[in-house]
């Protein structure tokens, strides 16, 4: 199934499938537009959802059987919402799908997990709804300026109203709301809080996919609808996004280093990964942004699955209780270390080529500060990767608490292995990835 998105990208010509709901013309009704980018992302979402189901059977037992049924139903609505966000070609419909995805996320975060998970969910509800309201007001301004909600129609007549103040206010409000949803730096607290407390099953899915979908919508809007020139240069969002991204990668990496809990460690590392994506957007390297996101979806999903697996067997996320895990569970520890290497950006992994493509673009633009900070933050990431690997491999073993081990879950192990292999094979096919990415834009 993982071959499907790559196959679609390689073999389809630049064809675009559109679907008008209810047979209304796209100017009146709602339209879905399936481009190569959205098809690839939608298959990736479904693929990760499938893998999460396969690998986290045991964690679903965290949730009791009655709510397990509801849980799956709500999760399916969430997947539908995320795919809708990716496919839709209508501003207001985008808002509706964002709300569908958000409401289901609030509910799923609260089921199971730690005692504080409901507080995290409520916190997310407040922040998320404010962000969504800003998106709605932004859509209002865009509609007032352009008189259309269809994105294609908006692009066609863009010249007539692109200087209007209402258009610009609308664009800023809308992108601002989406950036909160994507967990960009100054407003990332909800994300960390949610990742720290929620149940491991949902964490695997939301941690790898949700925030990226919003980042993808931002890329789609800036690149295809609002045009990078207007957003980044004339309105001047470039500096803002760049600053937030640079702060995110530095502070995310430094904070991650001090975490003693696998979940918070991965949460802060996600904050810094989102930062990389937004730096790529700010310097106009849209294909790098997509590669970065795809690489992080793979890496993060594998990391969260391994986290869930360790939690299922050891009953803890705390790093200091996992000393010498390598002796007990050599295979899973090895996979974990490979994936952390991809998070850092060690050669031969997907994380490496994504960072290289970002740095190359930054070098082209002679943005030395950006390059410097990326290298610095990669170094910090290397340090925390080293810290975790050292703990798993060598640390002295004191006060180990063991839950009785049942047999290893072959299904989960093989899923993680498959993802890791995909990761490495992407790392080996550097040229192909560039070709695929350049086909999108």
């Amino acid at each position, binding site marked *: 199934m993982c071959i499907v998105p790559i196959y679609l990208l390689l073999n389809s010509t630049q064809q675009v499938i559109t679907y008008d709901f209810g047979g209304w013309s796209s100017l009146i009704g709602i339209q879905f537009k399936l481009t190569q980018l959205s098809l690839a992302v939608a298959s990736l979402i479904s693929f990760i959802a499938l893998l999460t189901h396969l690998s986290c059977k045991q964690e679903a037992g965290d949730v009791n059987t009655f709510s397990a049924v509801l849980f799956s139903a709500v999760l399916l609505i969430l997947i539908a919402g995320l795919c809708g966000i990716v496919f839709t070609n209508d501003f*207001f419909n985008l808002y509706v799908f964002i*709300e569908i995805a958000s*409401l289901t996320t*609030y509910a799923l975060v609260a089921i199971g997990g730690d*005692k504080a998970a409901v*507080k995290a969910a409520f916190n997310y509800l407040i922040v998320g*709804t*404010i962000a969504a309201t800003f998106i709605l007001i932004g859509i209002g301004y865009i509609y007032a300026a352009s008189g259309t909600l269809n994105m294609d129609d908006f692009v066609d007549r863009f010249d007539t109203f692109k200087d209007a103040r209402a258009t610009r206010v609308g664009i800023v409000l809308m992108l601002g709301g989406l950036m909160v949803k994507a967990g960009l730096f100054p407003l990332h607290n909800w994300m960390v809080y949610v990742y720290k407390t929620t149940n491991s099953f949902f964490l695997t899915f939301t941690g790898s996919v949700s925030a990226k979908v919003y980042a993808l919508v931002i890329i789609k809007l800036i690149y295809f609808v609002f045009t990078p020139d207007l957003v980044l240069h004339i309105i001047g969002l470039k500096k803002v996004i760049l600053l937030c991204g640079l702060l995110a990668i530095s502070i995310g990496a430094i904070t991650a280093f001090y975490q003693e809990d696998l979940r918070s460690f991965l949460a802060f590392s996600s904050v810094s990964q989102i930062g990389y994506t937004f730096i790529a957007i700010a310097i106009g390297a849209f294909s790098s942004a997509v590669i970065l996101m795809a690489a992080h979806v793979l890496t993060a999903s594998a990391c969260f699955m391994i986290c869930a697996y360790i939690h299922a067997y050891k009953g803890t996320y705390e790093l200091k209780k996992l000393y010498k895990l390598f002796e007990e569970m050599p295979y899973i520890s090895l996979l974990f270390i490979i994936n952390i290497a991809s998070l850092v950006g060690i050669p031969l992994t997907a994380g490496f080529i994504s960072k290289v493509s970002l740095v190359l673009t930054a070098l082209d633009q002679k943005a030395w500060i950006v390059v410097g900070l990326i290298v610095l933050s990669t170094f910090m990431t290397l340090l925390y990767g080293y810290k975790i690997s050292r703990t798993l491999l060598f640390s002295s073993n004191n006060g180990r608490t063991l839950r009785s081990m049942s047999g290893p879950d072959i299904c989960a192990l093989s899923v993680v292995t498959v993802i890791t292999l995909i990761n490495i094979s992407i790392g080996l096919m550097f040229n192909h990835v560039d070709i695929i990415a350049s086909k999108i834009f």
Partner: protein
Amino acid sequence: MAIICIGLFCVLSSRNYFKQLIGLTVLQSGTILFFIAMAKVAGGRVPILNPANSGPITNPLPHVLMLTAIVVGLATLAVGLALLMQIQKRFGSVEDK
């Protein structure tokens, strides 16, 4: 706009989860009014197809969009209240400490 600001202030300033939720609802009502005000055409009449009347008509689309927004707001409120009940059950209070 004023209502939006009041709602936002209410959400950000209060430490009580229930008050935050009320602020959120006020914020959403403000947005709804913003859309409705935007739709008003000066001298426009009710948008019902009637050949006898002519002249400008008020744009009905934002009203229809706001129907959806009201439903979304209601759903958000319901999820929020459900979470509040759980918080009350688990922590014994709805104050943010």
